[in-house]
């Protein structure tokens, strides 16, 4: 399934063709696997934010198995296969509660695109005929509640909000109450952006999670970390910390395009096991796609 993601990625690449070619251009079948080839392969993997470790691993394998051989289809499928394997085969669908509202907790660092992602998720469920409540638990950042409010209005879903500075856990509590009272299907909880190193804020996140669990059994059913695809190796530390604190179930990769390839997800998968569930590929409210590992690897290649 090569949907909008694929097209977007291709478009992004077309714009920056001279800056970054994909990996596929290397496997013309004409050259040999020599020093230059290895260097170039390494360069392209690094450019995709794959990170020094995974890149070295992959390059070493190529060196071992393919040195002085032809850089053709064999090698291409080996690299592709290897990358694809690294992403694993997880169930990437969202877990839905058997009965009662499904609660989705969304967290991430500042500016990663949480609010926009929530709007996109809410819109997705709304379009599928679900009754959605969003909880504006970012009571810290100036105008964050207003920002989510504008989206909620546009989508036409319910929003639970409170005064600036209110304990976010209490907003989460109220949202659950409201969802139960109104028989909503989905509760999406927005949280303030925080860096994973801010212990007190991570504690606050834990509290929100606890409150949700008390209100609705099994909640949050999904705990998603929003990750900016332009982020580099720090993304791994983010995933480790957020994943631990909120009991992460998956990642939404935002701001993906031709130059920002989000290669950090390979390391994230290896270290935390967290699968990418959705990708944000644009600014309009429909621009949210289920993650497609094959398309993702293909996009790295082209």
């Amino acid at each position, binding site marked *: 399934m090569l949907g909008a993601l694929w097209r977007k990625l291709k478009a*992004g690449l077309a*714009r*920056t063709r001279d*800056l970054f070619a994909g990996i596929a251009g290397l496997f013309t079948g004409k050259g040999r696997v020599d020093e230059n080839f290895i260097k170039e392969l390494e*360069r392209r993997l*690094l*450019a*995709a*934010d794959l*990170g*020094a470790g995974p890149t*070295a691993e992959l390059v070493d394998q190529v060196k071992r198995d393919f040195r002085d051989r032809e850089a053709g289809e064999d090698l291409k499928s080996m690299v592709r296969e290897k990358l694809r394997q690294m992403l694993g085969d997880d169930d990437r669908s969202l877990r839905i509660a058997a009965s009662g509202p499904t609660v989705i907790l969304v967290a991430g*660092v*500042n*500016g*990663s*695109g949480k609010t926009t992602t929530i709007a996109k998720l809410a819109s997705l469920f709304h379009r599928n005929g679900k009754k959605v409540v969003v909880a504006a638990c970012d009571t*810290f*950042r*100036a*105008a*964050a509640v*207003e*920002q989510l*409010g*504008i*989206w909620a*209005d*546009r989508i036409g879903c319910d929003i639970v909000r409170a005064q600036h500075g209110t304990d976010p856990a209490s907003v989460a509590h109220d949202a659950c109450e409201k969802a139960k009272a109104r028989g909503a299907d989905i509760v999406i909880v927005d949280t303030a952006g925080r*860096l*994973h*190193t*801010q212990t007190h804020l991570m504690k606050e996140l834990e509290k929100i999670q606890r409150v949700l669990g008390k209100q609705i059994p099994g909640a949050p059913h999904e705990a998603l970390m929003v990750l*900016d695809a*332009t*982020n*580099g*190796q*720090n*993304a*791994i*530390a*983010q995933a*480790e910390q957020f994943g631990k604190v909120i009991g992460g179930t998956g990642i939404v990769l*935002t*701001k993906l*395009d*031709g*130059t*920002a390839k989000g290669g*950090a997800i390979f390391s994230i998968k290896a270290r935390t096991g967290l699968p990418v569930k959705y990708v944000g590929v*644009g*600014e309009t409210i429909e621009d949210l796609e289920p993650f497609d590992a094959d398309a993702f690897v293909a996009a790295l290649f082209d």
Partner: protein
Amino acid sequence: MICSGRYEGSRGALRLSLPFVPGTMFESLQQTLGEALKRLRGRGRLTEANIRDAMQDVRRALLDADVHHQVVETFLTRVTEKSVGQTVLRSIDPGEQILKCVYDELVALMGPVDTALPAARKDRPAIVMLCGLQGQGKTTTAGKLALTAKQAGRKPMLVAADLQRPAAMEQLRLLGEQIDVPVYLELGQIDASGNRIGGPGAVEICKTALARARDRGCDLIILDTAGRLHVAEMPMEELRQIDRVVGPDHVYLVCDALTGQDAVNSAQAFNEALELNGVILTKMDGDARGGAALSIKEVTRVPIKFLGMGEKLDRLEEFRPEGMAQRILGQGDILSLIDKVSRVQSEISDEEREKQQKKLEEGSFNLNDFRKQLDMLKKMGPAKDLINSMPGMSQLMPAGQDPEQSIRRIQGIIDSMTRRERADPDEIDYDRRLRIARGSGTRAEEVKQLLTQFEMMRNVMRAMAKMSMLERIKMMSGMSKMGAFMPGAKIVSKGDTGHRKSPRERAEDRKKKKR
């Protein structure tokens, strides 16, 4: 003598090992460098071949810190060029020495820093324009800059020129309220679903804001412009138009420290469109190592001005290349290390050694110089390795005693002497010896012993200074062999009279002593 550029033999040189925090994803660069360079210690000079492995470690560290891969390559070439040919110092690990080169180069590349905001012109306030991708922290940074300016006695005004993001204008208005700085915004018409319809465009808003600011007597306006998810979608034309029409004095790129390899792409695009004057790196309060700083500086040549260190508006700091270099390398305690290496490097510089050598040849070598030599010795490596390479030194060390301690004892004795005594040891008589012994907590015999030994050393060295290198080596090995045959033996010295004393002279000596 002594330190003519040969630092051979190693065994466990002093190391500053920084604690490795388990669970952190980045191994301490110093630790890995130490491994790669273990073989190198005491091997004379750094060469391209023997630092190759170390450079691989540096490379890995820079990539882990998200420095752009091409920037890493050029950077390493430069560091290699600068390191090659350096003498390997003994008291510092070669890894530390290379780390110092890397650090120096990082600091040089990211500096110098000029954090001054532009001054108002005669006819209008100064204008600072912020640009950057979405979610980098432009609006928050605008508030922080305004507060910084205000605290410096300026009269800033914030301008909401981001008409794109929902509630961006509201956010800026609230920030302005918090720090009591005026905010210019044109909400325009809002339709039922919160979309802004009609109203002036961003260029128009900036123009009007400038006029308003002038009227209100503000001397600085800060433009908060719209961001997009990707640089290819940035409304560069709109930004260029603002640039043309309003003519900002400074344009700053706001970029977050979490950004990976993509940082260079956006920095380049913004720089081409707008000619940046500075960069503000945000989200530095996290644990991102912020290699983007180096990448952006390298690609755009634009200085980094400020760091965003937290969400609170007073958390804007001036950029310091030293701190950033430290961070990119992932070293908590690198500064003390850097200090140590540069101190040692300058103190045992060739110049200093030449000076000493000359003194030797002239025969003007005195206890002051000896004291300095001991200092150098301590810095160059563990004393026990060096003592054998110093003529006469092994005899000064009592058997079974820690040589470091012995050196300290000798230094103590010298330190208890007056300047004149040190310059001319022959002056030191019995009374002076007693005083020196009291001052250094030793016995008068020990002082005497030191003085005789020193005299002997001086003679040997004076002779050696006139020898060829080969003769010197021969002599040195002879000396240490002698030491080996008489472990810990005290050399019974009769002073340096040059002849056997007659019974009469000895009797006189005894008399002197009794007095």
